[in-house]
């Protein structure tokens, strides 16, 4: 790399800059929009020069959307809270169920184990709408419609296969001899699972959990069908910004900024786990 000519280095820098601009521009634009009023957003030609305002955030946080047609109640903060509850609980439940299952699939080849694992994965490629309509009817009968428990249960369709398959790969990468050695040292299989398998697959579990969290957070259609206003996450709640008097771009932008903030923060925090997870092979004993 060091002996690349200045020209190549320059071109490489240019290409990287272009890629960064391509990906970051929409986010930057949204952030800028969130500090503007609808009027400044929609003026022609668009400009980056404006007087920043916090009224979008204020409207979201107080739940009072002031528009030309009057004051509208919105539940953005409640939606945000719902998103947090649904995603955190779904991922937690998935980890609780999926990590031991992944370990079983990785370490024990029993009759039909591949079939079961594959069936679980296949939940990921069925179109959600196909299962949603019958599910909605059942949920009505069972009283699960519009409950956190019902939604968290359905969210397992998103999180569980993801966690199961990613974590299984990490468990398979651990040399069985390392676990054997711990058992021969006199520890039970459960303590081996806890002290050897879990810590060694830790980065992978963190990565899988993070991915599952993002997928759960971004889910739209399950909550749209199965939840009413008070249980809806932000993805569905954002529909409220399309009002009779027009689309509230400023609030939408502020809503987006607030709703991507948790996942972004989590991804930044867990970045080192993701990288560690990818280089797990290098630390095998």
């Amino acid at each position: 790399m060091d002996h690349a000519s200045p020209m190549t280095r320059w071109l490489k820098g240019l290409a990287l800059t272009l890629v960064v601009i391509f990906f970051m521009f929409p986010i930057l634009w949204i952030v800028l929009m969130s500090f503007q009023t609808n009027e400044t957003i929609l003026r022609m030609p668009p400009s980056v020069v404006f007087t920043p305002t916090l009224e979008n955030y204020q409207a979201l946080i107080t739940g009072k959307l002031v528009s030309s047609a009057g004051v509208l109640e919105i539940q953005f903060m409640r939606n945000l809270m719902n998103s947090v509850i649904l995603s955190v609980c779904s991922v937690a439940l998935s980890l609780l169920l999926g990590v031991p299952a992944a370990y079983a699939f990785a370490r024990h080849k029993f009759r039909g184990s591949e079939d079961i694992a594959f069936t679980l994965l296949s939940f990921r490629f069925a179109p959600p709408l196909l299962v949603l309509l019958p599910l909605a009817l059942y949920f009505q009968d069972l009283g699960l419609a519009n409950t956190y428990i019902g939604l968290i249960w359905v969210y397992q369709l998103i999180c569980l296969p993801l966690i199961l398959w990613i974590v299984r790969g990490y468990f398979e990468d651990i040399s069985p001899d390392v676990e054997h050695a711990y058992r021969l040292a006199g520890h039970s299989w459960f303590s081996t699972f806890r002290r050897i398998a879990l810590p060694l697959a830790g980065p992978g579990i963190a990565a899988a959990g993070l991915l599952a969290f993002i997928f759960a957070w971004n889910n739209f259609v399950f909550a749209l069908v199965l939840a009413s206003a008070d249980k809806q996450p932000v993805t569905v709640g954002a529909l409220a910004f399309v009002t009779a008097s027009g689309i509230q771009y400023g609030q939408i932008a502020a809503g987006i900024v607030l709703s991507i903030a948790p996942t972004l923060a989590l991804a930044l925090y867990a970045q080192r786990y993701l990288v560690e997870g990818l280089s797990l092979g290098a630390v095998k004993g």
Partner: protein
Amino acid sequence: MTERKPPAIEIDAVTKRFKTDVALDAVSLSVAEGETLALFGPSGAGKTVLLRVIAGLVEADAGRIRIGGRDMDDVPPEERGVGMAFQNFALFPHMSAFDNIASPLTARRQSGEALRAGVEKLATMLKIGHVLGQAPKALSNGQKQRTALARALAGGPRTLLLDDPLRNVDAKLRFEMRLELPRLLAREKATTIYVTQDYREAMALGDRIAVLEGGRVTQLGTPEEVYLAPATLSVARLFGDPAINTLKVTPQTDGQGPFVLLSDLRAPLDDGLSHAAGRPCVLGLRPEAVRFTEAGAPGAVAVTVEAETPLNEKTVTLVTTKRGREILVSRPAGTPGPAEGAAHIAVDSAHALLFDAETGARIAPRETTRRGAAA
């Protein structure tokens, strides 16, 4: 050995198949208390599988394992009182060397000063005291191997299973450890099964050697027995470097006793081998059982010298007989060798081994009145 105690480890007709491959075919062995059994064989012979069956890591399809007289059928690995060192070390990558070695002690709820003292004593003995705080990643292969060994020993196991622990360390360290290990094993007084693919290691470390080939024990005996009286041709081939010379022969016998023809000349065999006359056989000649001699000396065979390789402690010469059969001759380094070209060799009849050409089984000399007079 004469005590009436039950053997420390008893392996009784253990069979293990992987799908259709037979890894272990009714293997039976017993190891006496305090004995070191070297389990030797080529790769793929089933040595590691057998070790794992003993440790309880692999379940056998048939047969039983008894340790200290107790049936191990339903005993999980952690309760078998077995210490094991793995070929790939299998250190816990997320723990320091200290915690690795301490793991058998923490399993017994040891902590504090007793634990520290136990680990440090072993570490000092194995010369890894200075790297105890480091992660396995930071250790050299030799230190990893010693850490793995210390971990296997830390619990003070009655049974020690060592799976080719010197395989992945460099030649110098392997040599050192080959000298050091017997002392260590004697001090630990554990019954040991030592798996190796290196016949020198097997001979240096084993009180007895079990030769495992294709999932079967083909010979069980002391190092001397296995080397000097191999049960089969393949066992003979596995021991010795350079490998044993094998020549297809049909022994004959006359008034002076049995012999084979090499370069149309008479090379005498042990007198007890007369009964092999006329049978198609394979003659096994260790390179050190052949020596150079003068033309006309008794049993001298004319050969052509082809090439000579000086090794450290010996010189190996490749010669061919009149019919073009190749024989390796070994002699201690520094002793005079043959001139280029024509030379004569003589076979040490007491150490010439005869195998049945068809079955590969060794044809043992029978007791005769004349035996011994020839030597």
